[in-house]
């Protein structure tokens, strides 16, 4: 490399922009804060929606359990254990058949989405606290 030419380039183009790096940093911080705010709002919304759905499905699930005869099948264990031991395969099939699988799946999904949202909101709040 031509060292003289390198020296020349470095001498001639040597604008020091100390204020610019502070401005850039402030712009990035502002964007980060905005992005955190949007994400917090989004996750809070999803969390609230999941909670509402969870309560709704839980109430409906309680009714479905009552109407499907699930509790009656369970109570058979305590009242007629010997008979269940004899016909355990049939008993298990009937028990599973009485389960409201779709509602249980929906409940688990909503529970997961609620927990993930809560975790994310806590992370965002922690980030915000560290950021400030």
């Amino acid at each position: 490399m031509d060292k003289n030419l390198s020296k020349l380039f470095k001498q001639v183009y040597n604008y020091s922009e100390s204020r610019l790096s502070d401005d850039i940093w402030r712009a990035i911080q502002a964007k980060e804060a905005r992005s955190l705010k949007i994400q917090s709002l989004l996750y809070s919304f999803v969390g609230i929606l999941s909670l509402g759905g969870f309560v709704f499905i839980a109430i409906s699930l309680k009714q479905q359990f009552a109407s499907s005869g699930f509790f009656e099948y369970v109570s058979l264990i305590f009242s007629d254990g010997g008979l269940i031991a004899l016909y355990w395969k049939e008993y298990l099939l009937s028990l599973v058949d009485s389960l409201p699988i779709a509602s249980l799946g929906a409940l688990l999904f909503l529970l997961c989405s609620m927990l993930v949202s809560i975790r994310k909101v806590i992370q965002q709040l922690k980030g915000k606290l560290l950021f400030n």
Partner: protein
Amino acid sequence: MEDDSILIKRYLEGEEEGLKILIDKYTSSVYNFTLRFIGPLNTSDVVQEVFIKVWKNLKNFNEDKSQFKTWLFIITRNSITDYYRKKKSIPFSSLREEELNEDEIKDEAILPDEMLEKLQDKEILNKILNELPENYRMILALYYQEDMTFKEIGEVLGKPLNTVKSYHFRAIKLLKKLCTKI
């Protein structure tokens, strides 16, 4: 000064300071480089845009593929291209891919002392550099100001090593020619 990869790691692990140090370290380089192509009026905005892109994409940066400085100048080059595109002029296509002459692929091209003396004048150097095609100017800036190797410059410009060497040789040749005219 801390190594770039350590600073990136610190930032990705949640230490904001890592990115702040990187910005402080490279703002002047990116500013001086961009200034040559865009002029003083819009340079700060483009530099800011470059670092915002860095902040957004730092998670995707792969240090096995290239060094941080090379990656940063690829983003800078793209931002300059975007700026020109918005202005509806094409910056880096001023040179078409030409047939390479093996004689032109040389690593060294030294300017005589009297020419160097002439170029000490900032106005003369600026005037001559502004007459050079964009790619030539970019190669000279990255090579002589940023101390990048031809290989790294090739990565920034997306050109093969021999093309970069050839452009460098031609840039110096043109620089000499323009210098003798003044």
